[in-house]
């Protein structure tokens, strides 16, 4: 699986949505992406990429695109 596929899969699993809903998706853009869903998403991503996200990154993670940027910049994950 590519990193992008892993990334997408984490969203699909944690937020119970489909891949086509991902581009442009923002926090609270779907019912499941509330604070509970957010922490579930973070836990899923941490497992998938074997990382520990910093507090700042968790609270800055505000959209599908922003999350990718954070993982790339701060955790060296190439998409």
């Amino acid at each position: 699986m590519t990193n992008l596929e892993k990334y997408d899969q984490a969203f699909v699993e944690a937020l119970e949505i489909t891949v086509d809903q991902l581009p442009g998706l923002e926090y609270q853009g779907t019912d499941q992406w509330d604070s509970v869903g957010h922490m579930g998403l973070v836990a899923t991503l941490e497992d998938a990429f074997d990382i520990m996200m910093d507090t700042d990154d968790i609270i800055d993670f505000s959209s599908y695109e922003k999350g990718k940027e954070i993982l790339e910049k701060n955790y060296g994950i190439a998409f």
Partner: protein
Amino acid sequence: MIWDFQKYGNYTAILDEYGKSLTYEALDKEGRLVAEAAGRRCLAFLLCRNEIGALVGYTGMLNGGMVPLLLNSHVNREALEGLLAVYRPAYLWAPEGIPFPDLTPVYDAFGYRLLQTCYETEYPLHPELALLLTTSGSTGSPKFVRQSRTNIQANAKSIAAYLELDETERPITTLPMNYTYGLSIINSHLLAGATLLVTDKSLTRREFWSFFQEAGATSFGGVPYTYEMLDRMRFQRMDLPSLRTMTQAGGKLSPALHEKLAGEALAAGRRFVVMYGQCEATARMGYLPPEKAAEKCGSMGIAIPGGKFHLVDEEDREITVPGVSGELIYEGPNVALGYAERGEDLRKGDEWGGVLRTGDMARFDEDGYYYITGRKKRFLKIYGNRVNLDEVDALVKGRFPALECASAGADDRLYVFITDQERAEDVKEFLIHKTQLNSSAFRVVCLDEIPKSDSGKTLYRKLEEYYA
């Protein structure tokens, strides 16, 4: 009148995340305008968000002798329509963005509108009735707790006393104001002349923490899930010099997390205060004094000033020895008047006489500190919201009459057992829609059959193996 806002004159009562603020004097004046626009003592539904407009409506109505019924602004439409039909309020106070084409706007302020309904008859209100709050989340259940002016004042005064609140406090909102615990923070701090920092943003957002730091928040409250979340975010590492106090209620923290949080708070020179309460007692009944947080880990503490706890056994005899579990009974001026389930109930007076059977099982230690040991009734706390399991069973059976179903679980994890795999997804979606809670709380498990006794009663105990 509940609060004497004039007493604090030009102190700031409310500051929101966009920099807008109101002094106590202005809050008093703006609130009066809302009550005057309605013009009389009557029932009003408030669709709440943590915003200045919602607080102006709430305080203005309470101080002006109206009876607000508080709902989350995200309440689903069909639940709201149902409640309107049951209670026939004279007015709604709602954010401008929510459309009500059939109602007449008569006043607006701070992004909220006062909307007049047109029911031919209204239900009479008992003179002591001041406020109506839901016991659970937003299932649309018509069951509300009837609170009096005395209840609200007594509880706010007691909370302000044991937390030693004064005008230098700046609590930031982390809980919905229609939720009893969130509201108690508002009520008690307005009594103390403090500044409420209001935001509808969640603790997982950057905007929340920027506001927290810029406005210098001194305290916040959280349910067990809030603290689990903060712990996972490693919030201990954040730079929050203004923070003095963290309170916890809305369910029992795991003793391990309680110990960790108490230890970290102590090291950081902060207070961590575990509390116990229910909407039926306005909000708070017990608290663990912060200096005992580490020593009495796992305890919810002692009764609040003006209140009293005792335990009774199954024959209703008082338990007088430490270490024995029994039902927790609370007595105090904050015990509400009773429930309302229909419009006619609004004329009822005090049915509980200041005594509340909590439905929680507890024991006390040699020093008189109480520990919750379990629950007498079948309910769970999901993200701080009370969810009655018998009600869940009834809801599912009502929607899927042919389905065998039994619900059980632990806090923050509700399990629904059914016997037809094909309906699993439908059942889950239905419950998410009904309760408006995040789907992670629900697990639907398919069994060959629901374990039952010879007389046909569901054996909930036997379901424990699937989730314990």
